[in-house]
Each structure stands twice: as structure tokens, then as C-alpha cells.
């Protein structure tokens, strides 16, 4: 039989209760630093391969591209192209979002709406938006409208699908709590379903953004300028025709940069302020 015992506990002072991680580990936890490092390694690789190839027409080096990019930005040519593209893109994106929410709200409130959504998404989601462009040109002419039409198509289905599956995933308890407080119809969707499904909605918005951005550049590449003013895709297309390969690369770099910027600044900030802060997503 062992003896019982009690220990009188003094305040613990001899060992620090918390301590900072070493500087290197703290730096390594910064996502932007790690990603930046990856980008630098890629740029160095690119430069090395380009110098080894030594053919400006096929593969301009990283520095040449940077120079072309810098010139383009300085002269304002690239910026004006970007603003043309973004203006169209945002119009299409916003219309797509509005339609997607209308469709999913309909789908959560009625059986017919549900069937409509599932039928339409399964029909149109696999259809590449760019394939609709010839038809859009026929209907809306060579203007912005046909671009907006394909953009809406590229955003709508992906976002509606994600939002709807997000709505379905909202827990029964939360739904009951909302109904308990007398929330119904639109108010129920706004105050319960949308915030509760925000992780899926954000995922849908991201996918929709990427789809729209791609579709737009591709549309501009294939069909060139609409109504005399070309966007970024047109810039790439034109410079390839004139064999300014470094400018083509600069145009592509801008496409990538804008993608990264939107992803990292807009979406990540929004995520940090919402779903991450609320503990709904890690």
C-alpha cells in the first residue's frame, strides 16, 4: 500500500510560462515570405533557361520581360488595356453574382426552383463559356455585351452550385434557431443561410472569378478588339502578330499578377475578416 500525499504548490517562477519562437521559425510562418521565395526561385530558373536558349523571339528572359512590363506600365498602354478588361470583367462578374443568388434563393424556397437549378447547372456547368462566344457575337454583335454574356455564363453556374451546396450544409440547429426567432423568407436567407454558407460562397466566388478572368482573356485573344478598344487579351494577340515576344510575356505576366493580386489581397483579406475570424475555416 502506497502512502497518500499532498503537495503545496508555490507559484512557478523558475521556468518561463511562455516564450517566443526563434526569429527564423517566426519568419518561416509568414505565408507571403514563403511564397515570395518560391517566385524568386522560379524567376531565377526562367532567367537561366532563357539565357541558355538564347533566342529572344521564342523565350525572352525574365529581365527582358520585366523591362517590357515596366515600359508598358510607364507608357500607360498596359494600364489602359487592363482597365478596359477589368471594366468588362466586373460588369459580367456582378451580374453573374446577382443571378446566382436569385437562382439559389429560389432553389432553397421551392421544389421547382431546386429542380430548375439542378437541371440548369448540370446542363450549362460543363459547357465552356468560350464556346458560347460565336453565338453571343451573333446575338449581341461585336460589342461589350457579347463579352458580358459569356462572362455571366462562366460565373453563374459555378457560383450557384457552390452557394447551393453551402446552403444545404447549414446545420439543422442553426436553421431551427433562425426560425425560432421568427426569421422567414428573404430575411432567413440573408441572416442565417448566407453567413452560415459563407465558406462555400467564397469558394464559389473565387472559382467564378478565375473562370471569368480566363474566359475574358481567351475571348479577347480569339476575337480581338471589340468595338475598337481591345483589352489585355488583345494586347497579347497584337504583340504576338508583331513578334514582340517580350511584350507578349509582359501581357501574360500582367494576367498572372492581377490573378495573384485579387486572390491574395481581395479574397484573402475578405476571408481573414470573415470566415477565418469566425473560426469557420482554418
Amino acid at each position: 500500500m502506497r502512502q497518500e500525499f499532498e503537495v503545496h504548490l508555490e507559484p512557478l517562477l523558475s521556468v518561463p510560462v511562455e516564450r517566443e519562437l526563434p526569429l527564423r521559425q517566426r519568419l518561416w510562418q509568414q505565408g507571403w515570405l514563403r511564397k515570395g521565395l518560391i517566385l524568386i526561385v522560379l524567376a531565377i530558373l526562367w532567367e537561366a533557361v532563357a539565357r541558355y536558349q538564347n533566342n529572344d523571339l521564342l523565350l525572352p528572359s525574365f529581365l527582358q520581360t520585366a523591362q517590357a512590363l515596366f515600359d508598358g506600365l510607364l507608357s500607360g498602354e498596359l494600364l489602359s488595356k487592363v482597365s478596359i478588361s477589368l471594366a468588362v470583367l466586373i460588369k459580367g462578374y456582378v451580374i453573374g453574382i446577382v443571378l446566382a443568388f436569385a437562382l439559389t434563393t429560389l432553389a432553397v424556397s421551392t421544389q421547382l426552383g431546386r429542380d430548375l437549378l439542378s437541371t440548369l447547372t448540370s446542363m450549362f456547368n460543363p459547357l465552356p463559356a468560350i464556346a458560347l462566344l460565336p453565338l453571343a457575337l451573333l446575338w449581341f454583335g461585336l460589342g461589350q455585351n457579347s463579352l458580358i454574356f459569356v462572362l455571366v455564363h462562366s460565373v453563374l453556374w459555378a457560383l450557384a452550385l457552390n452557394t447551393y451546396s453551402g446552403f444545404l450544409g447549414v446545420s439543422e440547429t442553426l436553421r431551427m434557431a433562425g426560425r425560432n426567432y421568427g426569421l422567414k423568407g428573404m430575411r432567413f436567407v440573408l441572416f442565417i443561410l448566407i453567413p452560415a454558407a459563407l465558406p462555400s460562397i467564397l469558394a464559389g466566388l473565387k472559382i467564378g472569378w478565375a473562370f471569368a478572368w480566363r474566359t475574358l482573356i481567351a475571348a479577347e485573344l480569339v476575337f480581338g478588339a471589340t468595338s475598337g478598344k481591345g483589352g489585355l487579351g488583345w494586347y497579347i494577340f497584337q504583340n504576338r502578330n508583331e513578334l514582340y515576344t517580350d511584350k507578349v510575356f509582359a501581357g501574360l505576366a500582367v494576367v498572372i499578377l492581377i490573378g495573384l493580386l485579387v486572390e491574395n489581397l481581395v479574397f484573402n483579406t475578405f476571408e481573414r475578416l470573415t470566415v477565418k475570424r469566425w473560426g469557420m475555416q482554418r
Partner: protein
Amino acid sequence: MNAPLQGHAASNLNTAQPLLAVDHVSLEYRTPERVVRATHQVSFEIDPADRYVLLGPSGCGKSTLLKSIAGFIKPCEGEIRLLGQKVEQPGPDRIVVFQEFDQLPPWKTVIQNVMFPLLASKTLKRREAQERALYYLEKVGLSAFADAYPHTLSGGMKARVAIARALAMQPKILLMDEPFAALDALTRRKMQEELLLLWEEVRFTLLFVTHSIEEALVVGNRILLLSPHPGRVRAEIHSHQYDLHSLGGVEFQASARRIHRLLFDEAPEAERELGFADIRIAY
């Protein structure tokens, strides 16, 4: 002590009519193949300031009954009346505290959570809602966490927020669906104690669903026993004389044993000695 809380209907009602009347209510739920009867012709009445407990083994339909009182499920027979008014749909005069921790919208801070029903049901303006929310948060001892998000709280704290949120609405009746079942034993004990203290102070009317005999005896003043599959009324038992200090007392144990016998329909225990462990099985 309970002077400033006139909003609670419980404290200023005559007992001429019961606050809540459940009148021969049968409930059914549907599975893809069949219709299952959850409760059969259950009747009981709750008076103002009652702490009424529905107790029964799992599958006796007690949670379904609570959801039906909340207005989420329509009875297939009989009716439920709140102050003489037939219950047809969910409403903020009957606030439910659920067992699940995700009953608190994660996108709202603690105080926003408590204000949420007040604003959603348009009971109060924002500033008044905030004042009342703070008042009840203080009651449950969470003033310091008013601006924290739910995911940073422990289970017990989340349960407290849910209780504060329900009380802040000053509902005619507070419906609690096994609110402490997901908590660890020590926290659960503490929450029972706090709930009773709050009741002493506010005198709300409470309908409490549990499957633990011990919890029923401690929390309730009257206990309705339901038989398993489908739930039918087996007995109604007084338990106002017990609180957390009676745990383990002789009378308390006798009541627990009696409830156990009624619930599980054992042959009248002639010589059989029930050990302490037997009584706690449901706990």
C-alpha cells in the same frame, strides 16, 4: 431580487389557465419506408414559473415533443396551447436552447448573439437590445467575453451564451433540449447550479428535456415520465424538494429508484438491492 424583471410573463400571471397546455398530442415522423409514431396522446400542463422536466429513455419522443411545442413539428393529433393560443409555428415567445454548440451563429460575437433574436424578431431597438444583452450576459457571468467569437469559448461558456440569449428574449416559456448533455460532468454540475440560481432570480418558466434521472430531480419541480417507443405518459412526479445538495441523500435515492422502476418497468423490486451505480446509469 426578482423585481426588475417584469417582462417575464411567468411572474405576473394568474394560475387560472395553465401557461402551456399539451392536449392529447401524438407525433409522427416519416422515414422513407414508413411513418413512425414518436409520442402517443401525451397530455400535460405547465404553470407559470414551473421547472417542468420531460424525462424518458432515448427514443421516447421527448425531443420531438419539445420541437413540436417550439412549433417546428405539427402534431398529427391533439393540440398545443400557449396561454390558450394554439401553437402553429415557431415564434420568439418560445425560445429553444439546443444541445448542439453550433446553435450560436459563429459569425456573431457573444453580445451580437444575445442581441440577435431581439433584433431579428424586432422586439427591441439596437441600443435597448444591447443594454438588455449586457444585463443578461452579466447574469451568466460572461460580461468579459462580450466581444469574443463563439469558437473561442469553451462548451460551458457556449451553453451560458445560449441561456443568456434565451433569457434576454424574456420568452413566455424557455425550452431546453438536453442543454447540458454535451458538457463534461463537472461543467454540467456547475451549469445545473447556475440555472437554478438564475431561476431563483428571474423565475422564468422552463421546460427541460433530459434523459438523466439525476438531472431531472435536481433541475425540475415536476417531472413527466415518458415510456419508450412510442412515448406515452407514465407518471408525473414532484421533485421541488431536491436540489444539488440532495444528491446522494436517502430520499433522493428513493425517488431516483422509483423513477428508474417506472421508466424501465421492472417488476416491483421486492428484495432487490439497487446499488448507487444502478441509479446513475442514465447519467
